[in-house]
């Protein structure tokens, strides 16, 4: 490598950029094609659909913002959004806290590391149908192991107050393994010397966690919370299979309401409006979260 070359590049910037443009586009092309074909065009199509009165197979009249107007005054939609956020509340923080705790256990007990990691990660491998089957068996009112241990005959999944928490607990068990991996990677990136130096200064136990582990893991935690929030807001399969939105719609989440509107009521236009509105809500929420993270970072600096 010539030493001058590195200083040459900034000077000939524009021409190099033009020369690089073609290969760059070529390299990007497969991604762009897939993105456009399977995300961007369908998203545009969905937006267009939301402005029409449509059934599953036929697009009828253009109705402008009528669907959105109905949506604003539709208590069922807001109920389902509320259920979705309740589910997120029940899952995001426990999943992150539990994931961190389990990752620290794996990190600490080096001798059984493989076993622990395997045990924690195994449920994540299960397909959703298997996971829901197991949860359903465990939660059976008269024959389930949960009631066997706790006593009583509560029908967890048919109980308006317990159905969503029960689904949330099942979901935590199912997906916590992913967060364990995430946090474990973060923990292993923290240099051991930091702990040694702190130990020499007399730091012990929780002080080590507060002053070294937590600050070093901060970016990982932020990522985990964002990923988890998105995953939790997208919940559909668990409630659809375990409770089909019942009892009395207390577990009908936003995507389930969209599904019902599209497939039970054959109202694809309104379903598309639900989808777009929900996307808007999630995007807004992500922006708020990003702003909070930035604000926290600024405050600490």
């Amino acid at each position, binding site marked *: 490598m010539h030493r001058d070359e590195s200083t040459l590049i900034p000077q000939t910037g524009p021409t190099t950029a033009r020369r690089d443009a073609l290969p760059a586009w070529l390299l990007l092309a497969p991604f762009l094609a897939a993105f456009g074909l399977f995300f961007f065009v369908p998203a545009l199509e969905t937006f267009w659909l939301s402005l029409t*009165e449509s*059934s*599953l*197979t*036929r697009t*009828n009249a253009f109705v402008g913002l009528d669907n959105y107007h*109905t949506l604003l005054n*539709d*208590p*069922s939609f807001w109920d389902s959004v509320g259920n979705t956020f309740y589910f997120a509340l029940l899952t995001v923080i426990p999943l992150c806290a539990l994931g961190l705790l389990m990752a620290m256990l794996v990190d600490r007990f080096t001798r059984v590391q493989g076993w622990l990691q395997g045990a924690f990660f195994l449920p994540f491998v299960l397909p959703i149908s298997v996971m829901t089957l197991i949860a359903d068996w465990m939660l059976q009112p008269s024959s389930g192991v949960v009631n066997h241990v706790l006593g009583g005959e509560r*029908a967890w999944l*048919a109980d*308006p107050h317990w159905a969503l928490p029960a689904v949330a607990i099942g979901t935590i068990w199912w997906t916590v393994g992913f967060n364990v991996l995430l946090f474990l990677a973060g923990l292993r990136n923290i240099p051991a010397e930091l702990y040694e130096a702190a130990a020499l200064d007399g730091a012990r136990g929780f002080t080590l966690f507060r002053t070294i582990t937590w600050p070093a893991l901060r970016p990982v935690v932020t990522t985990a919370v964002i990923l988890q929030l998105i995953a939790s807001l997208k919940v559909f399969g668990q409630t659809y299979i375990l409770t*089909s*939105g*019942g*009892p*009395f*719609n207390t577990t009908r989440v936003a995507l389930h309401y969209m599904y*019902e509107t599209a*497939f*039970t*009521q*054959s*109202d694809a236009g*309104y379903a598309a409006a639900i989808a777009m509105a929900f996307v808007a809500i999630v995007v807004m929420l992500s922006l708020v979260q990003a702003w909070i993270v930035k604000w926290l970072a600024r405050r600490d600096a």
Partner: protein
Amino acid sequence: MARRGFPRAAALLATLFLVLAGGSAPARAQVEVRMWTLLSGGDGARMRALVDDFNASQRDVRVVSTTLRWGEPFYTKLITASVVGAGPDVATVHLSRIVNLAGGGVLRPIAPAELASVGLRGRDYLPRQWSKAQYEGRTYAVPLDVHPLVLYYNKTLAGQAGLLDAAGNLKPIDGVAALTAAFRTATERTGRRGLTMESSQSSYAIWRLWLAMLVQQNVTIIANGRFTYGPAGAATLAHISEWFTRGYAQAGLDYPASTSQFMGGNAAFMLNGVWEVPELVRATKAGTLGFEYGIVPLPKMYANASTWADSHAFALPANSGHEPSPAKVQAILRFVAYVSQHSLGWAQGGHIPAYAPVAESPAAKSLMPNALYAQAANDAVYDPDGWYMGAAGPLEAIASKFLPAALYGYMTPAQAVHRFETEAARLVRKRPPRY
């Protein structure tokens, strides 16, 4: 290498098959009729037997039947398949869905001449059922049966409660107070439940009973895009929920749990459709039923004796772009006519045949226990007309979610009816869709 050989092997096999099939086939090509049904369990077996008998009775038409899951999944598949031209040749549907399916462009009308060509005439069907098969002056389905809501009773338990006459039959029950009293007496005197019925979340049974009770009060449900039952809606649901909250019936039982409560002799009465009849007949024959049972039509609780009912019927999907040829239509209708004429076998499923020559035949009239409730066909009330109405339709789905909530004490009857109305309002206001 092996892969490349595959098409050749397939071609060889196909040729072999053609040769073999050609050897036994008649000179005229056999017309294959593909049918989708939503009939499972005993009904499914009886329909399969009818299909097999028909296929064996002649060589021109061969019916191939596919059973799909009952309810909303069936109708979603039928609607989407039919409008893109990929539906079956014939399907079993509920008469309560005709407005929805015919109005939505899912079904193909059947001309009187086409019916006449296989010897079918509208006046040979029970008038109420035939009129439910019409939409805007055209025939869209051929009715097969009527299956009303009836009241089953356990003669041992009802006898202990003093509810039977000298002949061992249920004394007439007149009025909702009398029915409530019967459930109460049975509960108190037998120590078992007075009543059992399906009432778990998302069960349609409560909607059916509620509808029948409103119609008995001469109350209309829906008119001009509005719910018109007024205070009767909540009051009627309160009557039903009272049976559960007072312990005459156990809330939250799903269908199998509710029927096994009755079959196990743990409830004096059961409110259910006639489709449970074959199970009782079978258990009686096998000697596993520990009691004698009786059936009466839904008691007259208010001004008239209306009862909720629905009907299975045969309909031809529109299959736009792939409309059936006249020969195919003829073949389909030959099968439909065969089933109509042989619907006595179908009646063993508890159903009342819709084909009058069968329904009024001495054999049908003496068929037990069907004869006990045959008159219910005259009092049958279907879901009101509306694109959103009908078996497992969008409105029933909403009703099934909220009405049972009143039986659990999770909502008051007024709240449950209000939530049902609020969520259904969007459907009721909406223009009927073309699918």
